[in-house]
């Protein structure tokens, strides 16, 4: 049971960075960023290439920078070029497929078995190495840093402006703030988290393939909605913690399901079903009284 929990915790923490990215773009900015899959892979491939070149720490920064650039282009398309926000994400996703293979040198798979990664670097520290805590510690550290940063960021004036943009863009304009600017900043920040998440996942499993990010947006959305269902507070700190918790719970359920012989390829179906239920649940609930009345009438 312990190794099971541990895997769930490690994977949950790493993917919670993408969940935090969606918390910013989806919950705060009200933009469904469909470039998430591509950006996740972008972070993974850039991180892998830089790590293979011998810079495991710089690989994190490089991945995040790549995420910022990707986020900037997605946001630029939807705020300045008149491309619908969903379409902008889909287009970016498609474009990133080519970009990612190009970054990996024309191959769709990179191996890091003999590469120094951030995880292998700290393995030499006695206690960490002995108990194989390296993945857990790095992932935990990254999540804490990102969550604290996000909390502070959302309290800053720029953070308030981003929240207001998702809430009422008219009000943002009348506060002399350009909503295009806040959307661009918001997506740059959120995509840097997504890319970091991809970079860490690739290094923890010591390989990248071009499909590493496929379905990430649905998985992260499912985690986000699960977290929101468990933590119903409106307090920002609780909601951020809820997003991380959701990622962990999602991975936990998934790992347990694998134990009960659910085939691994079912992950994406399960996450899609969760997202459907979480989004349409409240809608169906609000329609229920009308439905019940109709049923009542038919019975009479």
């Amino acid at each position, binding site marked *: 049971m312990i190794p099971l929990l541990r895997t769930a915790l490690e994977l949950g923490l790493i993917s919670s960075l993408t969940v935090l990215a969606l918390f910013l773009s989806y919950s705060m900015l009200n933009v469904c960023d469909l470039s998430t899959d591509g950006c996740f892979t972008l972070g993974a491939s850039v991180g892998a290439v830089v790590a293979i070149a011998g810079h495991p720490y710089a690989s994190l920064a490089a991945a995040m920078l790549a995420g910022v650039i990707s986020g900037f282009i997605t946001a630029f398309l939807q705020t300045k070029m008149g491309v619908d926000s969903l379409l902008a994400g889909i287009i970016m996703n498609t474009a990133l497929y080519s970009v990612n293979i190009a970054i990996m040198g024309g191959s769709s798979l990179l191996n890091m078995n003999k590469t120094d990664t951030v995880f292998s670097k700290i393995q030499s520290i006695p206690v960490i190495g002995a108990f194989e805590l390296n993945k857990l510690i790095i992932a935990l550290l990254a999540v804490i840093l990102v969550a604290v940063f996000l909390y*502070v960021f959302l*309290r*800053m*004036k*720029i953070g*308030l*402006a981003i*929240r*207001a943009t998702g*809430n*009422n863009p*008219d*009000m*943002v*304009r*009348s*506060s*002399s*703030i*350009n*909503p295009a600017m806040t959307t661009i900043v918001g997506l740059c920040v959120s995509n840097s988290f997504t890319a970091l998440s991809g970079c860490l996942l690739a290094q923890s499993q010591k390989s990248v393939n071009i499909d590493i990010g496929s379905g990430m947006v649905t998985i992260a959305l499912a985690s986000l909605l699960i977290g929101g269902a468990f933590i119903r507070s*409106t307090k920002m700190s609780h909601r951020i913690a809820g997003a991380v918790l959701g990622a962990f719970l999602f991975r936990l359920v998934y790992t347990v399901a694998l134990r009960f012989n659910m085939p691994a390829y079912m992950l994406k179906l399960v996450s899609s079903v969760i997202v459907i239920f979480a989004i349409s649940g409240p809608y169906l609930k609000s329609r229920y009284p009308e439905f019940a009345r109709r049923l009542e009438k038919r019975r009479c």
Partner: protein
Amino acid sequence: MLKLSDITKTFNPGTVNEKTALSHLNLTVNDGDFISIIGSNGAGKSTLFNAIAGSFMVDSGRIELDEKDITFMPEHERARTIGRLFQDPLKGTAPDMSIEENLALAAGSGGWLSVLSKTERSVLREKVALLNMGLEDRMNSPVGLLSGGQRQALTLLMATINPPKILLLDEHTAALDPATSVKVNELTDKIVSENKLTCLMITHNMQSALVTGNRTLMMEDGNIILNISGDERSGLTVDDLLTMFRTRSGRALDNDRILLSKNGI
């Protein structure tokens, strides 16, 4: 001083739905003016406000504010000097954010990376207390929980927290119940006179259009057909106004809300 010269705006040009909402309109608003604007449905009152606030660019003409050409300045930049309230009380605030956060954004003090300080919080709280609605004790509750009147009062405070050069009021009390509407009107008068704001107000209440402020404009077909102030205005009654409208526009005033409220408040 706000100066509009020869402003024209046509919607859907070249289609069957073509509508000239503003037609070669000229208007000069002096500092300290409080102008009431009345007119039929579709006379171009709100379009005039949209043109001033920059919601769209006018097709031709020139808009100057304090001798500076703002014709092509985008809406969010104009918002620094032009405050605006809509009829819909939900339009001016972000519902999921707290009263404090809404005000902090409107106040806009500090850099992009600044966090609201304790002093700033207490200043905002004091300002909210001036509204006399008990909102100062609910600074952290989401604005979405407030009533329409409370939200409109808050929007008024947000629009004037940095006194604007021009305040545009687009029937901002029309969607409120009568008692709240009176209260928000009183608040508006208080804030406008305390800050000596220059103000343009669209209203459907003919009586208050004659009593409130120092000038009355009447609009029809995208132009100003009546522009009165001073002695000429002080002796007028609502019936005079209706007669003037009929003689100038060649037809009876048709604004459902005006007709319904002609003898009322």
